[in-house]
């Protein structure tokens, strides 16, 4: 008998999301649809705005990764004016960004991901949250999580005035330099973050890699997705969050495309489906072939895992060590396990902390010259960074006064819309069949498939006792509800 499973709402997603799973007569998954029910229209209402306001305005695209938009926007604004900020300004932007990555990756790993691994994917929903994590890992760990993420936020505020929705980067540089006394604070917090990042990976090794059930899950087919990978790499082909070249590798690990971010329109395009407000970016070099895996498909991922997959390594020592351990353990490169994103995220956390420590000791970092007044006439520009959730592109066209006439945005999570849809369908197909009893644990395991992508709203705060989010209505063909499972 045909039935429909509605997962509404999905939790921990920027904006809202829902999943509709349709089962055929045999009780197998016919199809699953991932729907994003939000459309704000920044690309339209930003027209008429002066380009220097955009870093603050576009920050409001996301309250978890506002710094990513702030910097992509500032870089686009630099390009609009053809102005090159002073090196200190660029280093300050990158330093702020490393603190930002730390905040974001800690929030995702500990509050969103860790409950599934530390408490268990099928643990009672009332336990499967940050409080459950603290109960098992200890109050000391819990306190550390809070303190370190708080330091990461305070570090951004020290540099830029405020952490969430800063007003700091402007065309030509930034509005405020770093004082020596603030620098000392950042040195101290950076060291603390480095230790904590290292500890987080150790915790992951013990709790996740030390548990054969999780290792099997990571390696299992429902959570595998063989698609192309995209990420920014620096001149040495290493992962870089702030700047670089966009590199794309096939599911077999072969480089198939490489481009300067300003050229993005020749390399990616966006497909539209009528059931969701979010578009589906794809590689032009392959074309849109539908929701397909493999080399001939246009579908690509831009995630922490993707970044590690396309690069040759990490630019800082401990991160590089962790990178090598990652591929040795999982046995091949590229890695296709979506759940391995959690591990990749921790490797990136180590890199962000190490890079923070490097930058804060740079002799130029307290130089007061942090802004170059643009002289060229404003016209058009593209700015690109790696957001915690994927490659982020801002493209602006302005009039002669620097007021926007056209805005195009390809946001981190948007890159992953097709892979997320496919991972959900694959997990649903792998976990639900006519012989399965669909439990709350089953539904949570389906959620784990999208959660690994850290869809752009990982702001989950300290989770609280409560039921798991799902309700299944099993309906007859005529829509009559015959059974409801709530968790």
């Amino acid at each position, binding site marked *: 008998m045909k039935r429909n499973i509605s997962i509404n709402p999905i939790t921990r997603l920027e904006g809202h999301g829902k999943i509709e799973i349709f089962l055929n007569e045999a009780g197998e998954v016919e199809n699953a649809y991932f729907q994003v029910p939000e459309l704000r229209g920044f690309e339209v209402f930003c027209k008429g705005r002066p380009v220097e306001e955009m870093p*603050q305005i576009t920050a*409001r695209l996301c309250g978890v990764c506002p710094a990513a938009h702030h910097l992509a926007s500032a870089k686009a604004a630099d390009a609009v004016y053809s102005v090159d900020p002073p090196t200190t300004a660029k280093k300050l932007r990158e330093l702020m960004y490393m603190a930002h990555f730390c905040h974001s990756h800690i929030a995702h790993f500990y509050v969103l991901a860790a409950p599934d691994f530390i408490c268990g994917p099928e643990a009672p929903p009332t336990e499967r949250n940050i409080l459950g994590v603290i109960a098992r890992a200890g109050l000391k760990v819990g306190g550390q999580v809070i303190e370190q993420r708080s330091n990461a936020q305070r570090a951004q505020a020290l540099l830029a005035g405020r952490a969430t929705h800063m007003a700091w980067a402007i065309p030509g540089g930034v509005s405020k330099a770093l004082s020596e006394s603030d620098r000392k604070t950042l040195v101290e917090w950076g060291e603390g973050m480095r230790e904590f990042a290292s500890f987080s990976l150790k915790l992951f090794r013990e709790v996740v890699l030390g548990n054969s059930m999780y290792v099997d899950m990571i390696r299992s087919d429902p959570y595998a997705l063989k698609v192309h990978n995209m990420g920014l790499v620096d001149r040495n082909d290493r992962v870089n969050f702030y700047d670089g070249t966009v590199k794309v590798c096939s599911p077999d690990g072969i480089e198939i495309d490489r481009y300067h971010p300003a050229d993005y329109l020749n390399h990616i395009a966006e497909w539209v489906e009528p059931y969701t407000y979010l578009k589906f970016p794809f590689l032009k070099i392959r074309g849109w072939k539908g929701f397909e895996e493999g080399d001939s498909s246009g579908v690509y991922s831009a995630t922490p895992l993707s970044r590690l997959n396309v690069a040759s390594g990490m630019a800082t020592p401990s991160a590089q060590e962790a990178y090598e351990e990652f591929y040795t353990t999982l046995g091949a490169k590229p890695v296709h396990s979506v759940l391995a994103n959690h591990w990749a995220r921790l490797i990136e956390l180590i890199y962000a902390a190490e890079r923070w420590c490097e930058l804060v000791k740079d002799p130029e970092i307290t130089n007061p010259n942090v802004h170059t007044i643009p002289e060229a006439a404003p016209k058009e520009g593209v700015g690109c960074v790696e957001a915690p959730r994927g490659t982020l592109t801002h493209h602006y066209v302005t009039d002669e006064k620097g007021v926007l006439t056209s805005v195009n945005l390809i946001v981190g999570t948007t890159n992953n819309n097709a892979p997320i849809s496919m991972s959900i369908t694959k997990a649903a197909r792998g976990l639900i069949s006519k012989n399965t009893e669909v439990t709350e644990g089953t539904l949570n395991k389906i959620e784990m498939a999208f959660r690994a992508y850290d869809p752009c709203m990982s702001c989950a705060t300290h989770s609280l006792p409560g039921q798991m989010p799902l309700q299944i209505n099993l309906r007859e063909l005529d829509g009559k509800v015959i059974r409801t499972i709530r968790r």
Partner: protein
Amino acid sequence: MNQHKIKIASYWATSCGGCDVSLLDTGMKVLLLADAADIVFWPILMDAKEANVEAMPKDSIDLCFFNGSIRSSENAKMAHLLRKKSKILVAFGACAQTGGIHGLINTTDTKTIKDTVFISGPSVHNPNGVIPVPILRIPEGKLSLPTLFETVKSLGDIVAVDYYIPGCPPAVPRLSEIIDVIIAGELPPKGSVLGATDKALCETCYRIRHDRKIDSFTRPHLMKQDPETCFLEQGLLCLGPVTRGGCAEQCIRGNMPCRGCYGVTPGVIDPGGAMIGVLASLIKSDDPGAIDRAVESLSDMLGNLYQFTYASSLLKRVNKK
């Protein structure tokens, strides 16, 4: 000591999530709140469903934080539902209080948004001209999406609001203080604004005013500013005079002028209108030609004067041509 655990909920309408991040940033304070309260509904972090809220008795939620603008049918539905189920409904953050930055959606319309996003955008590849629809019939069944409103509104535009917490997002130290007040059960009279002062930002701003007048306006990236002097006197638009304090001048300390995310002080109805009074006092010349040039030099009067408050301004939206 109050033994009764209050029931708390939090919901986000059309929101960026920054208000929830700000709550998280209070660190140990939020854990204290979790301890003192039963969180009965908070979609971003725990898993009670809409159906659970529907099943709750009227007024059974003691306090509900509601952040985000009212931009879609889904947002409006949840606002009405949570108003019904909550004794106290708090407009949390600029979007709920004034419509927030999403008020700028009122400069355009839904058709233009859909056409740009799905048809004419430079990266769009949509050979069949597909546009998402509220109800879609597929072979397997039916899929639905909320409808988008032409005009974005604040929470108070559609339901009665008991308290307001301004800010985009509200400043973390203010949220810590508010949590203390909630845990102690010491909320002020209904209708109050929490976490913000009644006086303008200028009252607490450290920058010095020399009572200078100006010939024209400029923009932050086109000048070398004096970090100790009032922005307005340097020709940089700053909404301090019409904006509530409480944020500790975070942006100003970052050397950027205020854009009014805390909303207007009690005496002000429309920040643009009120700022026009300020700006007219700033302009030096009496000569119509010089005045026109000064006015011309002011960028994006609409976006810059109403960046967070357009939906609750007097004019509210751009007239369709």
